[in-house]
């Protein structure tokens, strides 16, 4: 993979993220069964199948086309709370992705836009035990890596690590958004399913980026 992510690279990364989520669907539903309604794996699997179908159906012109089409696919999958959140992440990423390819700085800029897109749609913030607890650390890690001149693949590696760590750490939090909020204190002890999905997606990006197509 080059020092910047091209259209082909990005498509491989998206497909790889989908694969990670599809493989993890049972675990995601299991995590959602503690405080939620036990369907997060089903929902995310539906979302990712929609992404794969969209990628198969229409060849995207550029990186932002690809991100937009993934975002719309997720938006359109009737995915309860998770659908519009993950969908708006990709859609806002597309808005923030300038140029033909994404180097570390451009990727960080796109993901920051994506994070902002999610935050526009929820009052949840860091620490509320939602997907933000994996997404925000991942994006921060990406930004830090880019600012220190790190190469894009290495930057992705740090982001994936931060997402995984964020998801793990979310177990200690008390849910204040999503269905799990109704559990109050009893929500402590298990990772947030949405955060776990973010970790799988970034892990997929990394694996897809590392493989050479």
């Amino acid at each position, binding site marked *: 993979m080059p020092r910047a992510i091209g259209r082909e690279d990005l498509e491989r990364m998206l497909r790889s993220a989908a694969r990670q989520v599809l493989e993890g669907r049972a675990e995601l539903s299991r995590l959602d069964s503690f405080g939620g309604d036990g369907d997060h794996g089903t929902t995310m699997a539906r979302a990712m199948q929609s992404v794969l179908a969209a990628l198969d159906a229409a060849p995207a012109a550029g990186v932002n086309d690809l991100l937009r089409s993934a975002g719309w696919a997720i938006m359109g999958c009737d995915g309860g709370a998770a659908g519009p959140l993950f969908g708006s992440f990709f859609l806002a990423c597309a808005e923030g992705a300038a140029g033909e390819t994404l180097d570390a700085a451009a990727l960080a800029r796109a993901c920051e836009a994506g994070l902002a897109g999610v935050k526009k749609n929820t009052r949840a913030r860091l620490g509320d035990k939602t997907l933000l607890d994996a997404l925000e650390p991942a994006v921060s890690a990406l930004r830090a890596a880019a600012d220190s001149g790190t190469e894009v693949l290495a930057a992705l590696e740090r982001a994936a690590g931060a997402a995984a760590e964020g998801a793990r750490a979310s177990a200690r939090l008390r849910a204040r958004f999503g*269905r799990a909020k109704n559990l109050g204190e009893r929500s402590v002890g298990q990772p947030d399913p949405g955060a776990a999905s973010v970790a799988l997606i970034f892990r997929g990006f990394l694996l897809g980026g590392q493989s050479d197509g």
Partner: protein
Amino acid sequence: MNKFLNDPAHLVPELLEGFALAHAGTVRLTGSRLVTRARGKPADKVALVTLGGSGHEPALSGYVGEGMLDVSVPGEIFAAPGPPRVLEALRLANRPAGVLLVVLNHEGDVLSSNVALELAQKEGLKVRSVLTREDISAGTRADPAERRGLVGCLLVFKMAGAAAEAGRSLEQCLEVAEGVERNMATLAVAVSPATHPATGQPISTLAAGEMVIGMGQHGEAGGGSRRLLSADETADIMVEALVQDLGLASGEEALALVNGAGATTLMEQYIVLRRVRRSLEERGIRLARALAGSFLTVQEMGGFQLCLCRMNRERLALWDAPCHTPALSIR
């Protein structure tokens, strides 16, 4: 799981096919699984649209028809439809008189609606929206963000629908809807769990002989699981909490709606309703209108919701206006 199902992946299209068959004269399917009226309404009248997860039949699509909704957007089982289909519904309903979108306060519905509304505004559609959040167990009136939308939405459909049918403007219909929303309150009680039709897993757990008032929500208005009480005791507790929340005073009048969750029989609902009237009358509140039935279910869950709405002359007239939908007919 003792249910009659086929491939869980096709649940929603299959149930909608049967729904459209059973109510062929009243509703039809169009576009990407949108439910609309079989006979449209003139474009000089405001249209009402709603959205929500499936698995709660007859809600919400059961209220599409004369005098109530124009379009409903059924989602997946217990999952809100995504913004694109909500936007499609808003486009379908769009008209000079405008569109009123009724949203129940649940994460997914609110997220989807917000995205769709933003896109609709960009397209220049004439849309306003109202959020129903009348579940008193999950927040106070002062801080309603967490109050969920329960069966009360049906009162909004009915009364704002009647206003629309009467030719009132979008602003006026919104005002009616917000008036109903402000003046209604709901509390739910559960006695036996539902099964998720796609996974076959129970959605909650409840021991025999136990009940949960507030249906597993924070518990502000009742708290955790407790011994099952009699119909009269349960009704009394619920009426008291709802009257408090609404600040209903002696001399006022109310509509009461008993909504069966699924496995709770109509027999029980009638027995509860009977006590609700007595309980209201003991407080000097007149039961102006009464309804019992399984209007918004959670599969085969045992339990019911009790919804009270403060009535005035205008709302009574709007309530009494005729409607004809798959799940509610008034004439």
